[in-house]
């Protein structure tokens, strides 16, 4: 085979493999990858979790060609605005402040926040128990605001890159308590009974998680809303939710 011919074949193969689904819309979806069981990277290096399954189901419903990427939480909105990817499916709570920066789809699950402590601390189950204590929280989450609202300067707040590192420090006893999404922590406590963690106080900050997109991409927002509707109607949503949590997270 001549050199020229093999180059032509090589380029031809490259072009074919570069566009496996000709015509399908290409969408790049970002998730955090450190928020188990909603989104995390498994030991094999693949993304897994509730958010990941939902993202894949939505793409299937839209017949879109999606790629999933990970992005650190505290830079996820700036990165979306900088067009590093097109969509955030990362358990992002819809807030007024975030709505000023980006657009959201309809809610894809409901959640609340709860404080978690080590059982051995034996804190009485009232708000004053945490006064003067050190409370951990993931940076740039809505939960940081919840602590400030409840305790102001009366507690020491430590902020973490990921919720996983926050859990680690509650275990290490650098923290007296932490606050995070209740379904997430319930899943953790159930699967790690040896951690000796327990919920304290009630539930705060009822929120709904939405899929985040750039404001100018309103057509894509509608597409995602339609796809969300589809997977809720055809039972895919419930199947995914049951798989991870044993119940549907679409109930308030």
């Amino acid at each position, binding site marked *: 085979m001549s050199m020229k011919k093999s180059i032509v074949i090589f380029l031809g193969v490259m072009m074919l493999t570069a566009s496996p689904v000709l015509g399908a819309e290409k969408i790049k979806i970002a998730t955090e990858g450190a928020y188990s069981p909603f989104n995390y990277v498994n030991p094999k290096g693949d993304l897994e979790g509730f958010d990941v399954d939902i993202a894949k189901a939505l793409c299937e419903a839209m017949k879109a060609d999606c790629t999933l990427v990970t992005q650190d939480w505290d*830079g996820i909105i*700036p990165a979306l*605005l900088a067009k590093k990817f097109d969509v955030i499916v990362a358990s992002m709570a819809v807030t007024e402040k975030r709505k000023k920066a980006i657009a959201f789809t309809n809610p894809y699950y409901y959640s609340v926040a709860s404080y978690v402590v080590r059982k051995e601390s034996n804190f009485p189950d009232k708000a004053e128990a945490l006064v003067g204590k050190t409370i951990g929280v993931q*940076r*740039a989450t809505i939960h940081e605001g919840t602590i400030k609202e409840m305790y102001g300067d009366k507690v020491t707040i430590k902020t973490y890159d990921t919720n996983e590192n926050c859990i680690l420090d509650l275990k290490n*006893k650098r923290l007296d308590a932490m606050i995070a999404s209740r379904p997430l922590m319930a899943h953790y406590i159930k699967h790690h009974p040896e951690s000796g963690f327990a919920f304290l106080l009630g539930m705060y900050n009822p929120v709904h998680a939405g899929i985040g997109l750039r404001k100018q991409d309103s057509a894509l927002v509608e597409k995602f809303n339609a796809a969300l509707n589809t997977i809720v109607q055809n039972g895919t949503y419930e199947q995914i939710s049951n798989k991870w949590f044993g119940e549907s997270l679409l109930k308030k």
Partner: protein
Amino acid sequence: MISDLIYDSFPPLLASSVLTIHLTCLSLVIGVFLALPLALGRLSKNRWVSSFSFAYVYYFRGTPLLVQIFLIYYGLPQIGLTFDAYTSALISLSLNTAAYTAEIIRGGIQAVPGGEIESAHAMGMTRRQVFRRIILPQMIGFALPAYGNEIILQIKATSLASTITLMDLTGMARTLAAETYAPLEIFSAAGIIYLAMVMSTSKLVTWMERRWTVYRR
């Protein structure tokens, strides 16, 4: 509007730079105190002493500082040693800079001309006197330019403290950027502050170099 954000972010960023400066200075001081015996150990004729120093330098220069910080902050609690974030950062930064500084000092000592040391001995100086009068002053002159670099690297290395919950300049910048969704403005402001710190340090080192090497001119 963009300039407004940069302007508004300066007060909190400057306040958090205090921690950056604090970590830099303290870790450098501790580092030098650890580095001097390490450098002498590297040059020691005792095999055990020189092997220990070599292994220390080899480990701390051969592994990323971030890994060392995580090892101390997240790793040690597993064997029951829990330091708070500030102490963990200070320990890792000090141990790390000690390794680099030890090599700089060793190089400085080895650069002192052997003839001068021999003459000093011939004049009847004790080993201690030779070290204090001949080796140390010249070593400082030889080591200062390289050490100036190490100081600058150390200022920048402190930014890793933000990964273990410390609110240093980088930690504050990341928090502000996450709150405002304006990383360009916030990190530019933080960059300007780092630049100012590095530039004043390098001016100071140049001035010190000139003072210490007066004898050479």
